[in-house]
């Protein structure tokens, strides 16, 4: 445990009173959540607790019914998805979402924050700077030797890394990962934990994960969601010994 959580900085992400309802069903219900700078926060909870919906709400995929999401002083609930990304929020999807027809290099290049508009993309030049950045990120995600590989030939774990790498290209201030180690071998999990520790330097990371060993190895702080509400929050140990959490996970 580092002391990061105790710094009295203004949180990088402040979610207050966030609610979304689908035909009366409240998937997220009056949620409050604060994430500090340089923090690695893991959100856990049983299926249907609203974890993925929270990520959807932050990145603009789903629109909130009420409540606010402040990121670095900007209100995200009314911003367009691409502007949220440009403001510095990166999001990895549950299933690896990469461009299978393109090479690893092209996948990473696609997220390089230049040529994001029509004319920019039309006249985008692959200069030395771009190549250097792609190679740098590729090394970081253990794919340095596979730059010319077609992405659909990668293993499942490598695809997960590639998607994380695509987010790193954007150098986001807040990185959101939905089940980053799903379908990974034990070895790959350990490597991913290393990777997360390295990339959380200088940015905040919000992770949804089920694998408790993995959660233990990366989390600064854990939030337990249940029925769209925060059930418990704190260190891994305190959460694991919380009777309400035990009830939710083991009860019924």
């Amino acid at each position, binding site marked *: 445990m580092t002391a990061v959580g105790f710094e009295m900085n203004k949180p990088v992400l402040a979610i207050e009173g966030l609610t979304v309802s689908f035909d009366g069903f409240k998937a997220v219900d009056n949620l409050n959540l604060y994430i500090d700078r340089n923090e690695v926060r893991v959100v856990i909870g049983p299926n249907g607790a609203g974890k993925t919906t929270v990520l959807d709400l932050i*990145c603009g995929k789903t629109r909130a019914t009420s409540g606010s999401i402040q990121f670095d002083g900007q209100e995200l609930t009314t911003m367009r*998805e*691409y502007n949220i*990304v440009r403001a510095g929020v990166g999001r990895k999807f549950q299933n690896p979402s990469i461009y299978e027809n*393109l*090479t690893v290099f*092209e996948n990473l290049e696609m*997220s390089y924050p230049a040529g*994001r508009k029509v004319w920019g*993309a039309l006249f985008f030049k692959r200069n030395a700077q771009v190549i250097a950045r792609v190679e740098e990120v590729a090394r970081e995600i253990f794919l340095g030797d596979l730059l010319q590989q077609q992405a659909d030939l990668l293993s499942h774990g490598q695809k997960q890394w590639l998607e994380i790498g695509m987010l790193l290209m954007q150098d986001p201030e807040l990185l959101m990962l939905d089940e980053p180690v799903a379908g990974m071998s034990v070895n790959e999990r350990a490597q991913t934990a290393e990777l997360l520790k390295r990339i959380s330097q200088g940015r905040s990371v919000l992770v949804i994960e089920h694998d408790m060993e993995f959660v233990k190895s990366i989390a600064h702080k854990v939030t337990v969601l249940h029925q769209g509400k925060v059930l418990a929050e704190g260190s891994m140990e305190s959460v694991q010994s919380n009777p309400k959490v035990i009830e939710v996970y083991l009860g019924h």
Partner: protein
Amino acid sequence: MKALDKLLGGQQNLIGIALLALLILVVFPLTLDAFRLNMVGKYLTYAFVAVGLVLCWGYGGILSLGQGVFFGVGGYCMAMFLKLEASDPESTKIQSTPGIPDFMDWNQITELPWLWQPFHSFSFTLVAVIAVPVLLAFIIGMALFKRRVGDVYFSIVTQAIALILTVLIVGQQGLTGGVNGITDLKTLLGWDLRTDSAKLLLYFINAGLLFGCIFIGRFILASKLGRLLMAMRDKEERVRFSGYDVASFKIFVFCVAAAFSAIGGAMFALQVGFMSPSFVGIVPSIEMVIFAAVGGRMSLLGAVYGALLVNYGKTYFSESFPELWLYLMGGLFIAVVMYFPNGLAGLWDSHGRQALARLLRRQPPVQAVAPVVKPKTESKILETQP
């Protein structure tokens, strides 16, 4: 030099373009009589639409069933100018109102409508041929893509737009010439379009413009925007959450396809000498899709071959065995979609190219035609070494 290489798409595609150029610019003009050559010229005007569809459907995943609208609007703009030139007061003096197009006179219209007024100017017409369809595509694209109307819905809505425009053109007889369209186009700035020499020149202009469009298409596909289009087609969410305004790219490629179609329409009016609603509606629009599908939805050059072959087949069969044609056309639709989703270009890739590769001692692509549509040729081209 490198830029040029990129534009042409490497050695293999240079050969492809050279072969097509040889066929269109040398073989056809030398072997066909004036009548047949004019017919090929007509087919090639459809190739503009097919090339546009490769961009927006093959790469962008946007299946527009209303490309006839843009072909038609481009054609009508050109036809309006030509019609005004053909309707000078001298040659229309027997009308009750001389100086206006004949069909207006038949519809008891006594004054040139305001919509027609600017088409006295040739430079305005040239601008309008492209600008009006592109503006239309931009509005449709803005309305639909910004609201995220899904692919299937987009197809249905574009089809409905094609229907609306046809009904409108047919209904507004006095303004548009109705079902017959705008006919009897004679001269362009005093130059008689009906002579063989004029038709020959128009054929070459048409071919030149077509190659221009193919080069523009290549440039787009070779750029980052080309890769983005494919990425959007396969993983739209990922692109959106990588910081791109997906709608703006779709609008762009839809407008490019509209512009290509419009050029084709204008060249049609010039070469064939009329324009009518039968090139606007649902049936022609969907036929234009089949040109691209037969040629290969991922291949700009394939689209040209597709347009040529299907139209040749149509002419041949509807002359000789008219009742067979619809069976063949329908069967072609089904067969191409179900068994050859990459069309002729896909077959060439899986079979023809290997033979060529052996000749050129290049590494042949190992994959056979997969049932899923995957950009094989082009993604290889785009794979430039960093």
